[in-house]
């Protein structure tokens, strides 16, 4: 547990209501609350803005359509026609991470994407799903994924373990990338927020100005990390279709 004024205090989980199921603690926490807000924002926004289904869209409807087209384009660029059936999943993943990050940018609001267990669970779903997909598409031949063609035979004892390790580390890199970005950004904001309070006289405005600039950067990173998460998912799906 961090100290009371630690910049990491913001990541502490506080149960809102204690629930226990089958001996497990499944309390509804501030993290769960952030997820609830995220899901509500996404579903309400995407439903209400497209409610009129008008051919000439309103501004809000245009935003929904832009998001739709953004991910649809991403999938068709990386995976091609095969990617269409994974569109709902990739879209949900992107929106969940994006809005989760954005909700986290609201002051005093919890950021669930800054928790490794959450990001790892999402990455694990992608990893396991893609691996199963690879075996469905290629059967036992999926193992040739680790065999790089056109390389001298004596290199294979070295390359195949490297390929296997890099494949297995995918969920870790995917989850740690998002987690670390969120953790670092929010910690940095908190550290500079502490400076605003602790610096003498009016000099506190400098860290305050820095916080303002950093908030802009964090919003960019929030989008960027969601995009990276989505595009890597697309690339992994593509790998499950097209081996080397």
């Amino acid at each position, binding site marked *: *547990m*961090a100290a009371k004024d630690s910049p*990491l*205090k913001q*990541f*502490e*989980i506080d*149960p809102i209501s204690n629930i226990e*199921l089958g001996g*497990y*603690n*499944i*309390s*509804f*926490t501030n*993290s*769960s609350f952030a*997820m*609830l807000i*995220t*899901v509500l924002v*996404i*579903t309400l926004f*995407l*439903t209400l803005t*497209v409610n009129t*289904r*008008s*051919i000439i*869209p309103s501004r809000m*409807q245009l935003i*929904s*359509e832009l998001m*739709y*087209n953004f991910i649809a384009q991403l999938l068709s660029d990386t995976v091609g026609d095969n990617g269409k059936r994974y*569109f*709902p*999943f990739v*879209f*949900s993943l992107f*929106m*969940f991470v994006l809005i989760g990050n954005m909700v986290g940018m609201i002051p005093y609001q919890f950021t*669930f994407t*800054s*928790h*490794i*267990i*959450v990001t790892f*669970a*999402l990455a694990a779903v992608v990893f396991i799903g893609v691996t199963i997909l690879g075996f469905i598409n290629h059967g036992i031949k999926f193992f040739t994924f680790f065999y790089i063609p056109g390389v001298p035979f004596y290199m294979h004892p070295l390359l195949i373990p490297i390929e296997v390790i890099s494949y297995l580390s995918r969920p870790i890199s995917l989850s740690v990338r998002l*987690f670390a970005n969120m*953790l670092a950004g929010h910690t940095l904001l908190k550290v500079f927020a502490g400076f605003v309070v602790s610096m003498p006289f009016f000099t506190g405005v400098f860290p305050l100005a820095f916080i303002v600039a950093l908030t802009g950067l964090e919003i960019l990173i929030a989008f960027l990390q969601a995009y990276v998460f989505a595009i890597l998912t697309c690339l992994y799906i593509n790998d499950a279709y097209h081996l080397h």
Partner: protein
Amino acid sequence: MPQLNPEFFVSQLFWLAVFFTFLFVFLWRVSLPRIATVLEKRQNKIDENLSSAKELQEQAMEIEKKINDRINKAKLETDEKIKETINALQEDVSSQLSSLDKDLEKKVSDAEKEILKSKDDQMKNINNEIANITKLTVGKITEIELSDNEINKVIETHKGSFN
């Protein structure tokens, strides 16, 4: 670091599963099909408008072609008419010219005849005058009365030397 505290791992995973599953199913079944219908509807509308625009363009091109054809036809007809008129006029002019020529020729030949006739008349008069003068002169000089026949005879015989 609170992230590594396993106390709430199960809770996190449970609520993540609940909310993400709900989000996924909701987007998959409700939101995304709605957006897809809108996009499809718009694409259909655009395609429809494009095809009707293409049709209209084709019609316009056809009309333009017809207009051009008519203009060309009219031009050809006008050319033909102009040619015909020019030909008719030329014929008219040439016929009028030839009739004028004929008239002129006739007039010239008439005038020539007149001139010849008057010349003959004059010559006859001259002969008569000569005879008269000769008669008078001879009568005055020689007091010989010469008959007209005699004088004419003499004149006839010497006519060539007068001219």
